[in-house]
């Protein structure tokens, strides 16, 4: 991890010299220059997100100034300031945290550069600080998971829920959406819910405890694939067949999850799509051209059944 700050430094230096050397990032030549500050490289999902943005920029002919914030807000603020100095055409970033952006975004606003938020939003009273927020609708993901269950459930169904990290937006929203979707079905009941911290070992340990304290579990709803994969191990250790004796619904659709889905161990996955590069470039072109864009743009996301997973697996990028 030690070498990353040096890379960031080098990037900042490089871009600074580029700025000093002349008009390489000016907006007059017709090509759009975008400054993008990524959260980090903490998961396969995030890596796919980064690659999608880089690839889409290349295809759309957008000059991308990319920097990795390594999960630190200060790095991100520094990157945004350097983008202001370079006078890029548009700044996009995935905020590491929700708060503390007002000052730096005011600077951006004064420099008359439009801002697009991706994947995560910010918590600010002043929503004129950014043009639009492009990201997943976690509540909708929970709703899709619940809806599949409502459509496929017969009779009494007991659900156990493996929540994400307590207090994290995806955990709160995916729980809310799921509850909303099953509210009209009295046969479906969530009999236990607990946090598995979005990790495999968390999912496994909580599921083991659930299996011991409840002998009537029909469905597991996990807020991400990893916890679902942990639950599969626990179910198997209890002598049951995952996907058959206990059905599993998860959110994310990362590679390991899709493989388990295709193998019949998971029954349904709601996609949380990191491939938002194309949509981001489209929005960037619109805001640079001065067009009105909606304040909230939802990433196009789908869902996968076991058959769909088998068909989609060979072409998946992450």
């Amino acid at each position, binding site marked *: *991890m*030690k070498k990353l700050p040096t890379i960031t430094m080098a990037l900042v230096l490089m871009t600074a010299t580029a700025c000093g050397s002349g008009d390489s990032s000016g907006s007059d030549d017709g090509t759009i220059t975008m400054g993008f500050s990524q959260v980090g*490289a*903490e*998961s*396969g999902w995030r*890596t796919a997100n980064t690659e999608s943005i880089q690839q889409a920029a290349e295809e759309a002919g957008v000059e991308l100034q990319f920097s990795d914030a390594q999960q630190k807000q200060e790095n991100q603020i520094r990157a945004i300031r350097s983008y202001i100095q370079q006078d890029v055409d548009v700044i996009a970033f995935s905020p590491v945290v929700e708060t503390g952006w007002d000052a730096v975004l005011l600077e951006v606003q004064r420099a008359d550069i439009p801002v697009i938020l991706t994947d995560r939003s910010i918590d600010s009273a002043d929503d004129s600080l950014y043009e639009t927020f492009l990201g997943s609708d976690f509540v909708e993901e929970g709703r899709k998971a619940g809806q599949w269950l409502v459509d496929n459930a017969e009779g009494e169904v007991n659900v156990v829920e493996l*929540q994400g990290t*307590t*207090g994290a937006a995806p955990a709160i929203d995916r729980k809310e959406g799921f509850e909303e979707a099953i509210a009209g079905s009295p046969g479906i009941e969530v009999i*236990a*819910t*607990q*946090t598995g*911290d979005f*990790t*495999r*070992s*968390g999912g*496994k*340990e*909580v599921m*083991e*405890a*659930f299996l*011991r*304290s409840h002998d009537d579990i029909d469905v597991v709803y996990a807020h991400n694939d*990893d916890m679902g*994969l*942990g639950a599969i*191990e626990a179910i198997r*250790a*209890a*002598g049951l067949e995952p996907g058959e004796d206990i059905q599993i619904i998860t959110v994310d659709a990362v590679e*390991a999850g899709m493989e388990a889905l295709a193998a019949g161990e998971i029954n349904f996955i709601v996609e949380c799509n990191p491939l938002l590069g194309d949509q981001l470039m489209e929005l960037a072109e619109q805001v640079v051209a001065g067009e009105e864009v909606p304040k909230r743009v939802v990433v196009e996301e789908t869902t996968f059944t076991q058959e769909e997973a088998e068909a989609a697996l060979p072409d998946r990028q992450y």
Partner: protein
Amino acid sequence: MIRHHLFWPVAALVVLLVVNTVFNPSFLEIELQDGHLYGGVIGILRNGAPTLLIAVGMTLVIATRGIDLSVGAVAAIAGAIACTWIASGGDALTAMLLALCVCVLLGLWNGFLVSVLGIQPIIATLVLMTAGRGGAMLITEGQIITVDDPLYRQIGAGFLVLPIAILISLSVLLAVAALTRGTALGMLVESVGTNPRASRLAGVSSRTIVWTVYVFAGLCAGVAGLMISSNVNAADANNAGLWIEMDAILAVVIGGTSLAGGRYSLAGTLVGALVIQTLTTTVYSIGVPPDAILVFKAVVVIAVCLLQSPRTSELFGSRRRAGPARTRTPEVSAV
């Protein structure tokens, strides 16, 4: 009996087991399934095995008046190396040996900083605590490495009637007990913890002893890391063994080993590790809401520590002499 240093930890363990049984009457049942045992208690033993193993190493370190904060990071490194090796087509046995060799080296590094350079243990091991996790992430390139190897699966999730993981941890515990209590080694460790300078002057090679306990702690952390990653067939550099050093230190302290060094109890560590794992399992089985978990755990731990403190036992002693023993009952149920 109430004066025995293990009375309250054991009482806490019993209360937790009773609470579990009340909520789930079949909790204590153990059944035979596919040739191995299965049940609530077995689950506690298996999930508690890594914490117990790390706590055994930590006990000796603490007995020399030291502390090792790097064990969680070392565990993450062990899992990362083993899984990366297996995922790139390597053999599981080589992978595990390689991982453990690296962990011994990391233990040597900690021991070198503490015993040769004389750096405060908490600072010396803090270096590896932060840098180590970064190292594990470099090895896995920040990704979760999934493996599927029948041999590797055994160490964390396998069974020889009992879970293999707890068999390993208990054997290490017994071996350490035999080695340190059967010979003078335990006394030498304690003497180094009481007064390193006086021990050296009395002819005890303090440096070697201190260095050795850090290497041993590193090795224990390595094996625990293999268990953690093998249990889910994956290496997660971000989360594997996260905060396990705190659980291990807590287990050691609950077991009556003094952080000031010079006195240790391996039986106490065993009880302490079981209390902590049972507590976690209890939280999941009785349905404590996720946002209340930390508070719930803290209350139990504080209650045990308070009851165990010398002041409280003095109070109990005098109150028992003064009044009827009945006053004890509400305190127990408060746990």
